[in-house]
């Protein structure tokens, strides 16, 4: 007994091999296998094709597994390498920045030492001997113009006549009163006199920096 279409027999054989037939259908087909050589060969073809397709799937799975493992390993190595390169680059940048700033600092110090400081630069530098020397020099020039000798003489004669009576007003007493109103405090006069005694020179320049 043969089916009209050879394809139908191949389909039936596939369903038998794939256990897609019911028990009755499978029993009927097995009865046919006892005598029908074409049905037997159809079963052999169905098994051959199915096993070939299944082997193809196994190959694809086996091919994908080691690749994925290798890819994973390569991915991990590439991530680690990338992190390492990033860390090295960051360290190099940091070192470069630090070296640049150090170099700039050295250059700034060198330029400051080479240039002649102005009075403002010296005044802005807090407490330096140069600063004090410039300020005193300027101050002395300004104060040199003041009548310190007259003020000093007035201070020493400030007690009056020996009998206690007030001294008669000398000539220009009105002017002297005005001057007395503008007298600097005694501590300043003493400081200026002591500084002038130590540092005065014939040309009026400062002989050396004042020591604190």
């Amino acid at each position, binding site marked *: 007994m043969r089916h009209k279409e050879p394809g139908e027999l191949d389909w039936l054989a596939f369903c038998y091999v794939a256990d897609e037939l019911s028990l009755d259908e499978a029993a009927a087909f097995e009865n046919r296998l*006892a005598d029908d050589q074409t049905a037997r*060969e159809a*079963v*052999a073809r*169905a098994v*051959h094709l*199915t096993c070939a397709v299944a082997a*193809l799937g196994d190959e694809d799975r086996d091919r994908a597994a080691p690749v994925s493992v290798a890819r994973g390993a390569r991915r991990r190595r590439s991530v680690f390498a990338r992190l390492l390169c990033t860390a090295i680059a960051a360290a190099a940048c940091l070192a470069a920045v630090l070296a640049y700033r150090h170099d700039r600092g050295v250059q700034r110090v060198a330029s400051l030492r080479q240039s002649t400081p102005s009075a403002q630069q010296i005044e802005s530098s807090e407490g330096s001997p140069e600063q004090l020397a410039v300020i005193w020099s300027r101050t002395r020039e300004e104060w040199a113009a003041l009548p310190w000798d007259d003020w000093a003489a007035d201070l020493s004669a400030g007690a009056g006549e020996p009998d206690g009576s007030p001294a008669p007003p000398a000539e220009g007493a009105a002017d002297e009163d005005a001057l007395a109103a503008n007298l600097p405090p005694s501590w300043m006069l003493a400081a200026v006199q002591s500084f002038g005694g130590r540092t005065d020179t014939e040309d009026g320049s400062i002989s050396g920096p004042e020591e604190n």
Partner: protein
Amino acid sequence: MSIVEETRLDPAVVAALYADHAEQLRRFLLGVLRDPSLANDVLQTTFAKAVQVGHTTCAESRKAWLFRVAYHEAAALRRRQMVGARARRQLVWSRPAAEDSADRPLIRCETVDAVRKALAELPYRQRQVVRMRIYEEKTFAVIAEELGIPLGTALARMRAALQKLGRSPKLRDQL
């Protein structure tokens, strides 16, 4: 030469029969028994009988005779082992290569390559059903449910795919 030896097939004839038909016969037995080791046992038994009584057959019908003997041997083995019908029907399509004969692998590399090319020519929907049925070993009922199609549609797609694969010139020489 003894009487027994005169009644036996020539070993060369048996060897030629084995070379011509053993592979196809093994596939047939695998389809019936669903077990490669049992299929190999029955194959050996079949050719042992061919040596003993093969001389009683004519040369033109020896192939069919071999298949008939193999089928009956397989049926008898199933009855002896008393294996449940459903459990026996479950066939693992991909088995380790060690279970196959070293000189006669069940599937040759050329066949696998031919199948790959033939599958690539199938429409996507047919290829999908083939993959789910054979790769993933899902029944057609499960395939129909997962794809949201009627059972008949799933069966039709598989049948169309098998017909195209059977007609493929790449596979025709292999099957």
